[in-house]
């Protein structure tokens, strides 16, 4: 997602001074020297206010995605579980918001290990105002840290769609607490941390296709398998209780995703702009193609479908956003919706109860996006970060196999660890609520409150 190389190149390009015929030779010389001095300063860590402004905004935008996700998911469950589902997201803002500062950032980004960070930045010791040249040379180190926090918050919340309407709240908190440490931090380090093995290998993940979407999508599968199906699966009553809430959630996600993807340029650069365009375009294309698939399959395009398609497109473009051009992003967007749609139909046929389709959207979308990066990435878009062009841009399979390795490694690791964590919790305290509590609803039984009292009293 970020490397000092890319940053230095692009900033350097932006600041390159072109001498005009009118400028005398001595000025040119002085300017050249001045430029070098500025460059030096850049590297040694002065803060660019424009880059910092954009990264602070991006951090806020990504934080805002989590309440957006709460709406997106909560609209799809029954009204008796609306607060439970909301809490699955909101509680991550609380828990991971704290643990990230305490140890998460350090485990993910400090040191130079290949598998996991070290404890050098525990409690943010040493993470201060001065930029970190490895990750973000033009913004305060604290800005980079808090930007990353927002990714760590939303990732476990994404999993919650699979376990909706039947998991004990305490077990959920325990699971996400451990998962965050044992899965998220290592995978983030592999892909983005200095020394991380996937980063070193040269696998590309611009904004979190593997770290965020594949890791959570696979964990979702583990949860669905371990928890089993909800009662009444397949009957009418499992229809979404408030689709407008889901669409609003999708709107907030789309909005926030600009921070997620364009923010991953770690500056207000042309690269950020390019990622922004790819993001919007893929989301649009995927929403449209989901509507088209529904039109063909059932005769009618739905609002839930358009929202689902948009999110699938946003997921799929995430790993690729900073490496591909607008036409590639259209292709990626158009292709993901039929894939996700089919995966979801397959799930229903297998009677796997991934309640809100985390596997179909995030695992399928993230994997497709990671592989599409191996097909469409091009130095023309990002000379600083793309080492090998994608297959369709003449780079052969050099990048593609790296991408496949990254997908496979992340998927296997997250799946195995998720099953292990859930098994331990199941043994210790159980993971599923009683039949009666499930029928009564999780809001009342897990949280002692109800979502709505809409009628006059």
């Amino acid at each position, binding site marked *: 997602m970020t490397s000092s190389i890319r940053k230095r190149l692009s900033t350097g390009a932006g600041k390159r001074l072109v001498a005009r015929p009118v400028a005398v030779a001595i000025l040119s010389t002085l300017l050249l020297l001045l430029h070098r001095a500025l460059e030096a300063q850049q590297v040694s860590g002065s803060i660019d206010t424009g880059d910092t402004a954009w990264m602070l905004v991006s951090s806020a935008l990504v934080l805002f995605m989590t309440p957006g996700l709460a709406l997106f998911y909560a609209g799809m469950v029954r009204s008796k579980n609306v607060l439970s589902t909301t809490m699955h997201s909101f509680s991550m803002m609380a828990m991971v918001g704290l643990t990230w500062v305490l140890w998460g950032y350090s485990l993910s980004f400090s040191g130079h290990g290949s598998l996991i960070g070290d404890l050098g930045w525990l409690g943010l010791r040493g993470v201060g105002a001065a930029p970190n040249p490895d990750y973000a040379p033009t913004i305060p180190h604290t800005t980079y840290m808090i930007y990353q926090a927002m990714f760590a918050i939303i990732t476990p919340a994404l999993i919650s769609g699979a376990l909706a309407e039947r998991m004990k709240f305490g077990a959920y908190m325990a699971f996400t607490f451990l998962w965050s440490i044992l899965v998220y931090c290592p995978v983030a380090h592999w892909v983005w941390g200095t020394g991380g093995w996937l980063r070193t290998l040269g696998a590309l993940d611009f904004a979190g296709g593997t770290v965020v979407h594949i890791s959570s999508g696979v964990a979702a599968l583990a949860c669905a398998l371990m928890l089993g199906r909800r009662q009444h699966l397949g009957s*009418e009553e499992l*229809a*979404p209780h408030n689709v407008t809430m889901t669409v609003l959630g999708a709107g907030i996600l789309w909005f926030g995703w600009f921070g997620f993807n364009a923010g991953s340029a770690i500056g207000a650069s042309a690269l950020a702009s390019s990622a922004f365009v790819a993001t919007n375009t893929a989301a649009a294309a995927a929403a449209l193609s989901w509507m088209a698939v*529904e039109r063909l399959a059932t005769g*009618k395009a*739905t609002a839930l479908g358009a929202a689902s398609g948009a999110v699938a497109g946003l997921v799929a473009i995430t790993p690729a956003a900073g490496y591909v051009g607008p036409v590639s992003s259209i292709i990626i967007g158009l292709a993901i919706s039929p894939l996700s*749609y089919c995966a979801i139909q397959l799930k*229903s046929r297998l009677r796997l109860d991934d309640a809100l389709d985390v596997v179909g959207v995030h695992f399928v979308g993230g994997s497709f996006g990671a592989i599409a990066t191996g097909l469409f990435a091009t130095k023309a878009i990002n000379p600083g970060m793309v080492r090998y062009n994608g297959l369709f841009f003449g780079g052969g399979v050099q990048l593609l196999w790296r991408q496949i390795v990254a997908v496979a490694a992340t998927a296997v690791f997250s799946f195995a660890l998720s099953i292990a964590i859930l098994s331990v919790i199941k043994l210790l305290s159980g993971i599923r609520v009683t039949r009666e509590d499930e029928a009564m609803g999780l809001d009342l039984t897990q949280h002692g409150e109800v979502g709505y009292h809409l009628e006059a009293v």
Partner: protein
Amino acid sequence: MIKIEAIIRPNKLDDVKAALDALGVQGMTVIHVMGSGKQRGRTQHYRGQEYIVNLLDKIKLETVVSDAEADQVVKAITQAAATGDIGDGKVFMSRIDNALRIRTGEQGDSALK
């Protein structure tokens, strides 16, 4: 006293209320219900999952009237609520043994006016 329960289409409520008004019947209670019958449901799709929903939105209007008024009221409702298409609904009549106005304690027919 007769209790008249009419299950009608939601968008006929205004017309039925107007018809009752014309008869001087103001007292009534209206409930949002869902009904199934001959009218076929509509198919809904959520992410490709198909649900055939045969409980459709209806309005149930209840009014208790004196024995004398009953037939006239039923007729008025029937006329105002009919479209001729399946799903127009039903009217049920049953006996009420007593009525009481909470405000005044009046009982019987005089509680209805």
